[in-house]
């Protein structure tokens, strides 16, 4: 089944793309591990936002909410595990600069 998405799609799509650009730039232009994690979070916010918009425009908000709840749970686990990795990295190298990861084993 295909439908023509209304004009509102572009309205929300602009903000989705802006958040994506922001998150990607934040991840790529920094050498700080924590700031990279913040960029990843912004990327996940944009995905969450677009899932809700997709549910709203297609009239399937319940399914979209179920998906978003799953995304949020995964997001928390990723952040906590990544925070553990950052702390472990900091204990080894005494810095958060990702360029120092080259000196690690493996």
């Amino acid at each position, binding site marked *: *089944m*295909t*439908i*023509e*998405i209304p004009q509102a*799609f*572009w*309205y929300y*799509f*602009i*903000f989705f*793309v*802006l*958040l994506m*650009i*922001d998150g990607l*730039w*934040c991840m790529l*232009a*920094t050498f*700080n591990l*924590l700031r990279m*994690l*913040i*960029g990843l*979070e*912004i990327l996940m*916010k944009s995905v*969450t*936002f677009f899932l*809700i918009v997709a*549910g*709203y425009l*297609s009239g*399937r*908000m*319940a*399914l*979209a*909410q*179920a998906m*978003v*709840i*799953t995304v*949020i749970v*995964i*997001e*928390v*686990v*990723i952040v*906590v*595990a990544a*925070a*553990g*990795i*950052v*702390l472990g990295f*900091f204990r080894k190298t*005494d810095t*958060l600069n990702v360029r120092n990861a080259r000196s690690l084993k493996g």
Partner: protein
Amino acid sequence: MTIMTIVLVLMVLAALWASMTTLLLRATIGLALTSAMLAVVMFSLGATLAAILELSVCAGLISVVFVSVISLTQTKTFKDILQHRKGRLARFWPLPVVMLGAGIALSFVHSPVQIALPLPGGDGDVRTVLWNLRQLDLFGQILILLAGVFGVMVFFKRESKDDN
């Protein structure tokens, strides 16, 4: 539409501040503000349950995790951070320009979009969908949570002398 536009613009501005600000603590506050704005958008679109979860977990819990990690890892003084500001600005100043350009370019695009949707039916209350139709997702969530817990336990494990 006007209030929604204001909230969406605030959300993007908060995200921009989170990625551009020099201090990590301010970046965390920016991220929490982005989450709060996203929760308002979700609530306006009718996704109340997801909005509550976004506000409590993403704006609350994740911010606490970030602040804890910052407090455990911050070794630079405020003076050192200010000295690195110039280098950071050189890498980040094109970001608002790129975002503004992308926003203006996309606002001129209005081509109709054909998107395939799943078959109708089966979409009712969010609780029904979550507990009856998406049970496998719940099992996946439990497994991921357990994986996260064990992962953190491994990362925080203290090295014994035999390991060295």
